[in-house]
């Protein structure tokens, strides 16, 4: 048993040819904590999040660094595996099971030809596989996870196809999918982008509710308006490099030029028309 559950990445570097997309990035998210990764488009936020799950498919040497996932008695370090098969197996232990992923494009993230109920059931069934212990969180039915994701009447949602959902409903369905195997951490990749302010509020409330359930969240956004309301720590990225780090509550004291620029842009938008 470790002191606390956490996920961390050390010295992550991602290259594409000569270009360095993410450089020497380290961060750690503890259980029940929200770490915000903030930056402009193309600053390497999504690459960082997807590296936790080994979803950046690349030739050897292109992705360097170490991912660590420690939950309960499990400690998974995929990059310590020299064999490709072993590394994939290590990532398989993480994907969905220990760490869930919440995408920006929620509608695209859902299989267009399956109902929501069937999709959640499939992921729940993965959690049940090989274990008869009913106390494993993933073994609760699709309704439980849809309710946890904010659907007060999940029976209404299970028979719907993705094209029948609104953006906010799709995002909630993705929250249910990300947690349905009982994962203790969530990588939320711009979950509020493209949603109207009311729906954004709802998703943010949901994220905070998950935090209260001791789920650790890496919250990726380019919108500083949302950060100070949810984040314990803010990491600012620029061209794949960490340029600023500060506590979420001290956003107003941020002095780094990149942070100030992001903040100014946000204030202008929230302050009224440009």
């Amino acid at each position, binding site marked *: 048993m470790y002191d606390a559950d956490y996920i961390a990445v050390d010295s992550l570097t991602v290259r594409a040819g000569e270009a360095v997309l993410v450089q020497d990035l380290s961060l750690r998210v503890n259980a029940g904590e929200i770490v915000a990764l903030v930056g402009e488009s193309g600053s390497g936020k999504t690459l960082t999040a997807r590296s936790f799950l080994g979803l950046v498919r690349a030739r050897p040497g292109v992705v360097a660094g170490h991912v660590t996932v420690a939950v309960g008695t499990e400690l998974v370090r995929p990059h310590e595996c020299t064999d490709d098969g072993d590394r994939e197996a290590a990532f*398989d232990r993480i994907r969905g099971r220990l760490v869930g*992923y919440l*995408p920006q494009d929620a509608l695209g993230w*859902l299989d267009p030809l*399956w109902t929501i109920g069937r999709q959640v059931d499939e*992921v729940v069934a993965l959690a049940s596989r090989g274990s008869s212990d009913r106390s494993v969180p993933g073994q609760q039915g699709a309704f439980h996870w849809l309710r946890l994701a904010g659907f007060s009447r999940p029976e209404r949602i299970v028979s719907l196809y993705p094209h029948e959902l609104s953006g906010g409903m799709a995002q909630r369905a993705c929250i249910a999918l990300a947690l349905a*195997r009982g994962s203790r951490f969530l990588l939320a990749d711009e979950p509020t982008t493209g949603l109207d302010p009311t729906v954004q509020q709802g998703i943010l409330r949901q994220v905070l509710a998950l935090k209260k359930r001791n789920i650790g969240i890496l919250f990726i956004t380019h919108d500083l308006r949302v950060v100070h309301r949810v984040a314990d720590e803010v990491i600012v990225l620029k061209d794949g490099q960490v340029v600023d780090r500060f506590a979420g509550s001290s956003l107003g004291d941020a002095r780094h030029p990149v942070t100030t620029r992001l903040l100014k842009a946000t204030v202008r938008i929230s302050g009224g028309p440009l």
Partner: protein
Amino acid sequence: MSRRPESVFLGAIPPALVLCAWGVSVLTDYDVVADVDPSRAGLGPSPALPFGTDHMGRDVFWRTVTASEAFVGPALVACAVALAIAVPLGALAGYSGGTTARAVRYLFDVVASVPRFVLVLLACMIYGSDPLVLATAAGASYAPGLGQAVYARLEALRGAEFVLAARAHGLSDARILGRHLLWVNCRRLVGRHLLYLFGFFLILETTLSYIGGFGIEEPQPSWGNMLAFEFGQHGMNPLATLVPAAAIWLTVLGTVIVADALAEPGDV
């Protein structure tokens, strides 16, 4: 292409009748030799002989029913062969991409460069015109078309967000490929191609039997050799040629109508 349900229903009737005829034929023991009776040659339709007799006095109805054995079984074998070759190779190429995809597509292109009919004739000349050889050769000759279609579908879906999502949820590659991509997204495509192959095999078998030398030989009936045998027999029962000709035409038409009904938006 979308079709109205009633036309699909009508289209499904001939292939369904053919399958029934095949079942009846397999279960009954119509003797093709004992049925020869020159004394009743060229009779018209009657309650006992619904389609009359041919110029050797054989029952055209029973010969038409029995002739289904000449192609239904082998056509199903051809479909199984095409399925077994094309779907795994097309899926492998479409899902993995890169060098594997290039190698598989090259193989498909090489096979597809030989016209199907020529490829089947070549196989029959080398291995004999046994129905199993015919079926295997037809299935193999059709495999590139089906394989390319599966490849194209998977190539388009491989990078889709929901596929990445399935990996992020921890689903195995085998499950993503088998369930989400092949079963959910390709089953209609594969079904459509197999129906086309069924129609193609019927034309192939009846053509070879009509020409003679390959395919089904007299006295075993095939709709092709029934046509060839009766054609030009003056003063004989016209139904002896019209029935097998109509059977070929309606079965192929019906099969294509049902196959087209499986087409999805954007299919060509």
